[in-house]
Structure formats: structure tokens, C-alpha cells
């Protein structure tokens, strides 16, 4: 069952090509992640799919309805949480929620079960004006408002940007519960570590998809053996890894460097190379790539970290 499909979408703003021949298909009940940096075209894509912007060419449907012809019906069945906080700042938490429920001819009571998990966390502040809420509370209110009419497809544009790791984890736990209720979720994020929580992901850069697949398959497709390298003097290590003639790519990854070697080179060789430069505590370990490794490899930027 297809919940959403897009075919060859193109969109430009003046001379800037925001989306180029973009196609996607999302199944009912999937969490589909659009993963990429700012300026990649994520928001443009969301605005086209939510009938707020017309594509220059290409077609898209949501729940079988055409985003141009049937825009009125689509708006009734989707929920949209834009990246920018767009609720009424001068209305209270409860007034905002009531407003959105009323606009969609429903009531808070009718669909309370859908938002209960999320809304009960901000309910103690229901008389506070939305403009006076903290970032995390705004996010929870916006999600409640996007859900109150029981949408079949939920669009979340960068819901976790600027949110700390703990709150991000909690937010994703909420999304998992929504998924279990059968809601299809399209979510965009610049955080690569969130990609593994999606059923399928599209890696996007400069208005084009670099790759679409399950996170597991994208990782399995990584063509090189990846080594995590650690040693004393991590700052200096970056420079020496760069100068190492048989290293193909090298990127810092928290407490280690993720390194790929030229075809004929071995980790033993690398260890000798570093030992010769008098590093101690050298550790070289084969590891499974992350989505971020895959993104950097696929990214068209001419950069291998060297």
C-alpha cells in the first residue's frame, strides 16, 4: 500500500535549482527519513508534498490524491509540523490545540488517545501562552496540534533540530508509538544518527537523492573495509593520517578516526607507519560503517578528509 509517491519533481527559485528530478515512494505505516544538511531541499520537498508549493514539473500523490488537483482533500488527511514554530504565540497551549481540532471538525476528546503520551507532558502548562514555552515544549505542542485530527500521513520537517540528545531520543520514542498506531511518518533531519531509527531513508544533498534504501542496506553497501584508528596525540594523528600515502579517506569520528585504506594496504602497515612516528596506544579495529560514513562517501563533495 502506497501512502505517498512523487515522480520527477523539479523546483527552482530563480537560478537556484532546489530539487532535481526527485522521485520517492512511501509505504503505509512506514517511517521514512529524509536525511541531509541545511539547504539540501528538504523543506522544499515537504512544502510540495503538503500542497503548499507548486513544483515546476513532476507529479506527487498523497494517499492516492494528487497534490495539485486534490489539494483540499489532502489537507484534511495530513498533519504537518513545519521546521519553524508556526502556532499562535498569543494563544495558550490549550487554545492552540482546541483551535486546530475545531478547524478539522473534531475535538480534543475524540482523538486524545493519539496525543495523550505527548500532550500530558505539557498539560500542566495548558494555560501558558505558546510564545512563552521553552523549545522542547513548543515542539511537543506542535506535534500534538499536527496529530489532533488523526492524520493518515504525518510530515515532520526537522522536528529535532537544535534539540539535545536526550530529548531527541524521547521524541523518537514518541514517533515509534505513533507508527504502531498505523500513521505513516515522513520525517527530515540533519542528524545522521537518527537515520537508523527509520524504516527507510533517502540521503539528500543539493536537491538530489544520493541513495534510498533501508539504513541496514545502505550500511551493507559500503564498499570498503572501515577501520577505527586511535592513538595518543589525536590532534597530531589527523595530520599524519592525511600524509599517509596508502590511506584513501580519513574522517574524525568522536574518539576515533574512521579510515579506509588503498586496495593493497593492510592495517598492519598502518600500525607500523604510526609506530615509526612514535605514537603509543595505537589501536586499529575493523568497524561497521555508520550512515554518516555512507553519506560522506556518497556525497559529491570532492573531499576524502585528506
Amino acid at each position, binding site marked *: 500500500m502506497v501512502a505517498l509517491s512523487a515522480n520527477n519533481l523539479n523546483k527552482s527559485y530563480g537560478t537556484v535549482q532546489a530539487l532535481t528530478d526527485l522521485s520517492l515512494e512511501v509505504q503505509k505505516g512506514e517511517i521514512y527519513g529524509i536525511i*541531509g*544538511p*541545511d*539547504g*539540501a531541499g528538504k523543506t522544499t520537498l515537504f512544502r510540495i508534498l503538503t500542497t503548499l508549493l507548486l513544483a515546476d514539473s513532476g507529479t506527487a500523490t498523497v494517499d492516492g490524491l494528487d497534490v495539485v488537483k486534490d489539494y483540499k482533500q489532502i489537507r484534511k488527511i495530513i498533519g504537518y509540523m513545519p521546521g519553524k514554530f508556526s502556532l499562535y504565540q498569543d494563544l495558550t497551549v490549550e487554545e492552540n490545540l482546541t483551535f486546530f481540532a475545531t478547524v478539522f471538525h473534531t475535538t480534543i476528546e475524540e482523538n486524545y488517545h493519539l496525543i495523550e503520551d505527548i500532550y500530558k507532558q505539557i498539560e*500542566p502548562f495548558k494555560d501558558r501562552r505558546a510564545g512563552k514555552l*521553552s*523549545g*522542547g*515544549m513548543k515542539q511537543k505542542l506542535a506535534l500534538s496540534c499536527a496529530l489532533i485530527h488523526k492524520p493518515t500521513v504525518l510530515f515532520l520537517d526537522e522536528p529535532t*533540530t*537544535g*534539540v*539535545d*540528545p*536526550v*530529548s*531527541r*531520543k524521547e521524541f523518537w520514542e514518541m514517533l515509534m508509538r505513533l507508527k504502531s498506531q498505523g500513521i505513516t511518518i515522513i520525517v527530515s533531519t*540533519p*542528524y*545522521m544518527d537518527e537515520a537508523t531509527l527509520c524504516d527507510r531513508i533517502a540521503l539528500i*544533498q543539493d536537491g538530489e537523492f544520493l541513495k534510498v534504501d533501508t539504513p541496514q542496506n545502505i550500511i551493507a553497501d559500503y564498499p570498503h573495509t572501515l577501520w577505527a584508528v586511535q592513538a595518543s596525540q589525536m*590532534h597530531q594523528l*589527523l595530520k599524519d593520517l592525511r600524509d599517509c600515502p596508502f590511506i584513501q579517506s580519513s*574522517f*574524525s*569520528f*568522536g*574518539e576515533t578516526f574512521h579510515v579506509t585504506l588503498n586496495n593493497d594496504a593492510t592495517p598492519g602497515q598502518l600500525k607500523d607507519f604510526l609506530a615509526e612516528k612514535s605514537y603509543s596506544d595505537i589501536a586499529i579495529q575493523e568497524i561497521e560503517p555508520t550512515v*554518516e560514513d555512507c*553519506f*560522506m562517501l556518497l*556525497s559529491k*563533495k570532492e*573531499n576524502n*578528509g585528506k
Partner: protein
Amino acid sequence: MENRVIYTENLTKRFGNFTAVDHISFEVEKGEIFGFLGANGAGKTTAMRMLCGLSHPTSGKGSVAGFDIAREPEKVKQNIGYMSQKFSLYEDLKVWENLRLFGGIYGMKDKKIVSKTNEILQELGLEKERETLVKSLPLGWKQKLSFSVSIFHEPKVVFLDEPTGGVDPVTRRQFWELIYQAAERGITVFVTTHYMDEAEYCDRVSIMVDGKIEALDSPKNLRQQFGATTMDDVFQQLARKATRKAD
């Protein structure tokens, strides 16, 4: 004493009966990269505003770049650099005009501004973009330029508030190299981030929970202390203890 660029002792900020920053004490040395972590609402922004001379402490004391943050906030402002995720560049000015403007604001001599402008454009590989309006630069370049602007007047310390939010993974790493370079030149770097891998790139890291600094050490020592394999684990252990409902 000379090497101590940031110093606080029981620094506190209350709003009504809410204690946003609760008796924090720490020191940061010259050339150090200091990561200032915490969940949303933990008090990071309030603490940072006090250190930048933008908010008056309720109690406790602190000095930045050798000036008292309560008594000499204007001096503090002149001697620090600041960059946030919302770049403070003027979109309708050209690249060189932005540098000229910020140099002028910080009272640099014209000659110095010219030579420093050439130096920075060369370093960033932006010589060809000298006459380009900032609004037409790619995001990654804007971010690097924004950082260069923040240290254009060669401050003793630069405050970076989530400088890498939303940028692509390659650019994010290139940005950290600029940070290393600045630190090697002796500029102290005070940085907040929500990317826990970036916490590893700091010399030392503090983690704020409910207005207090609950942990402060090198990433390696923190990982050992908390029996964790990554800084993300350390952060999750600490931040989950938070009781504040504000966020």
C-alpha cells in the same frame, strides 16, 4: 593567572524564584578548547550570556579575558568573539565588506583590517569571492566566514553557540579544523554543541544539569569515570537525571 582566560566562582543567575544557573565554578586556560554541554533548558545559554557580559549575575563572580563580568561587561565584550548558529553576517554586504565592518566595530586600524582581510580570504580559499554578496555564498562557506569574522579582531576567547547545527558532515569536520587552528594560535575556544562526537574534539568538557555543572573533565576521563564507551553515553546518564520540567 595570565593563563586563566575564563574564571567563575559560584556564578549564579536567578529569574524570580527560578535559579537558571546555580553556583557554577570553573576555569578555562589559554588556547584550550572547552566544550559546554547540557540539555535544553539546563542553563547553558544563560551562563554563556553572563560570560559574554550580556547578563548581570545575581551572585558569585567571574572574569573573562581578564575583565570582571559584573563590573566591566563592556571590556569583556571588546575582548571576546562570538558566533552562533544564526550567523551574524550581513547578507547584503560583500564578503570583504563584512570583514571591514566587524574590524571597524572592534576599533581595528584600517591598515590592519586590509592585511588581515587578505590573510583570511587566502586561508579560507575565498579570494575569488571577495566581491560576492554573503547571501549568495553556500552555507558551509558562510559558516567558515562567520567564524573568521568572530576571531577577526584576535580576541583572547571566542564563544561558539552550536556553530555546526545543520551543516553537512564533511563541512562540520572542516569547521573543527578551523577551531583547532584558532586554538593553536592561542585563542581559547568555548563551544556548545548537540553533536556528542564533537564533545570528543574538546580538551575538556563540562556537562550542565538543572543549572549546575555535574561533570567536568577531559572526554577520556569522563568516559572512564562513567564507565561509558562514548560521550553520548556519558551525556545520557547525566541528562536523564534532570528534574526540571521546563523543557
